[in-house]
């Protein structure tokens, strides 16, 4: 019994000694680790401000700051903080930050003197870039500068636009003058417009109304403006034939203009008594509610002819399909490329893109519109020549031509 007791005591002592040894070894290791972690961390190097470039072709108040930083430290830097002051020893104001690995910053200042971010033109500006490492250590660069910003009166990057505007203006004025002098400016027939008279005649014979939808554009949308001219022509014919006309509008200003257009057309046709403001009315400003309203008008009034001319969006197919289901002859036109396919599949005639503008000139025969259309054709001819010459120039490795046609914003 005593031997067993001695054995237990012996084993316990041995176990204690082993445990104590292990514990001592571990504590030694931890101490060593803590010694390592307490060693001073190598601070990241300072960023070096290289340049401050004034952004060209602007009104000033904008500068691109560039700095350099050793590539081997890229992974250790979380961000760079950018500061600006009016003098090297002035009060540096924090502007923003750039992520680690990015070595430039676009400083867009304010031109208002009472703005805290005010950035004067033609005055010395000084910058400082602070690198912030993952361990939280921040290192400031030397003060960079002086740099200056300046404004320009002329945007050299937009010279191609200026040339284009001047050329187009010259062509337009020339052709308008030619048209006014009585020169016959040919416009090829457009199937959709040739069908207008037939469509109005059909409605008259059937004793049914004509529905004219101007779309969901505003009065200043080009497609809506073109549509007004066509509406004038349609309204005049309608007045002559004494057919009913319905023009539901999406926009109150469009409605106002449309009322004027229709009133003038009725007057021109010698039927002012038949005009009523109720012919052109406002439905709603919500796109799909407008569609629901027009669909209701279609299925209840059963118009013989539907015109969809103007700016259209997602409602185009809903309108055209409903019109198709009631058996109306449909003439559509829009400059919205994504909507033209829907009109093509569901309407009898579709004016594709610019044909809508051409149609207004074709119908109106107004020298202003004819001249503009002729000028557009010349513009297209110039575009074709420029493309062909540009492709040839690129083939021969002369990229300057393409660069000349690049518009810098």
């Amino acid at each position, binding site marked *: 019994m005593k031997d067993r007791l001695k054995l237990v005591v012996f084993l316990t002592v041995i176990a204690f000694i082993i445990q104590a040894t292990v514990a001592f070894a571990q504590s030694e290791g931890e101490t060593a680790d803590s010694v390592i972690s307490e060693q001073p961390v190598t601070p990241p190097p300072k960023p070096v401000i290289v340049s401050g470039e004034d952004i060209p072709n602007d009104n000033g108040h904008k500068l691109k700051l560039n700095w350099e930083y050793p590539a081997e430290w890229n992974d250790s830097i979380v961000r760079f903080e950018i500061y600006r002051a009016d003098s090297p020893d002035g009060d540096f104001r924090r502007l923003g930050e750039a992520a680690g690995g990015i070595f430039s910053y676009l400083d867009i200042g304010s031109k208002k003197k009472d703005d805290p971010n005010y950035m004067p033109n033609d005055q010395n500006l000084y910058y400082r870039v602070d690198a912030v490492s993952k361990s939280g250590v921040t290192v400031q660069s030397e003060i960079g500068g002086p740099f200056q910003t300046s404004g320009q009166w002329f945007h050299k990057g937009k010279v191609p636009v200026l040339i284009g505007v001047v050329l187009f203006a010259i062509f337009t004025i020339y052709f308008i003058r030619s048209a006014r002098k009585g020169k016959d400016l040919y416009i*090829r027939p457009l199937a959709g417009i040739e069908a207008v008279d037939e469509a109005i005649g059909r409605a008259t014979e059937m004793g049914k109304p004509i529905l004219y939808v101007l779309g969901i554009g505003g009065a200043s949308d*080009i497609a809506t403006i073109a549509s007004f001219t066509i509406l004038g022509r349609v309204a005049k014919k309608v007045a002559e034939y004494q057919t009913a006309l319905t023009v539901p509008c999406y926009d109150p200003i469009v409605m106002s203009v449309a009322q004027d257009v229709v009133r003038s057309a009725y007057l021109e046709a010698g039927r002012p008594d038949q005009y009523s403001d109720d012919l052109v009315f406002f439905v709603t*400003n*919500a796109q799909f509610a407008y569609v629901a309203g027009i669909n209701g008008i279609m299925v209840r009034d059963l118009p013989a002819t539907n015109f969809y001319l103007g700016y259209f969006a997602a409602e185009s197919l809903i309108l055209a399909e409903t019109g198709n289901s009631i058996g109306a002859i449909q003439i559509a036109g829009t400059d919205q490329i994504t909507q033209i396919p829907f009109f093509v599949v569901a309407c009898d005639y579709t004016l594709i893109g610019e044909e809508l503008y051409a149609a207004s000139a074709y119908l109106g025969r107004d020298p202003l519109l004819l001249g503009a259309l002729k000028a557009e*054709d010349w513009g297209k001819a110039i575009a074709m020549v420029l*493309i062909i010459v540009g492709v040839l120039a*690129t*083939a021969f490795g002369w990229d300057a031509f393409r660069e000349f046609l690049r518009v810098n914003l």
Partner: protein
Amino acid sequence: MNAGKLLSYIILAIVVIAFVVSIALKGFLVTVGAFLTLFIFSFLYKDNPYYKFAEHLFVGASAAYWMSMGFWKTMVPNLFGKLYPPMVAWAVPALKNNPAQPLMLIPLVLGILLLMRLSSKAGWISRWALAFIVGTTAGLNLVRYLRSDFIQQINNTVFSLYVTNASGFDLGATISNVIIFGGVICGLIYFFFSKEHKGAFGAGARTGIIVLMITFGASFGYTVMARISLLVGRMQFLFGDWLGMIR
């Protein structure tokens, strides 16, 4: 009472009962949304009183909503709030300390001019405001469109028709560039209005319209896919939020 009328009353009774039961089970807003959706869908069958009800509600509510939004989101903060900020401080406190902008008198005057059309005698004055709106926008758009739709497009079409990559001649990119180049030229020919489409010019125009139609076909399919997603959204509402069949 004829059979048609009787059927109508029966359908109305079923709709009313279903509406009441749905409110009890799913709540008012979800039920109203679901029933209005079904009413609008009923147009696919034919015009009916339920569609008419939804249509008139939709048109009336949206017109009123946009009028209200136009006043509170446009006129109050952008006109009154800029002309004389203290005037709208009770509605938009954030504007209280903003400086007054006398230039906003110009849109105020233009707006009043537009309203003159309500007068039969002075209605013509409204044309001045309209002329200002249309003329200004047309002038601004001329430069914008010339830049983005004309010069930038020309620039984007100027490329090499013979494309090479690291491994030499790139047949796919070359074919792609040739098609784009030919398509653009033929498309431009189609949109020539002051010359008859005859002979070689006519052949170019015909090729142009073929290119356009192929493009429209692709656009059609792409857009239909997007529209289907709208339908899916409505179906999820009906079968998920309302009927609870989709979890």
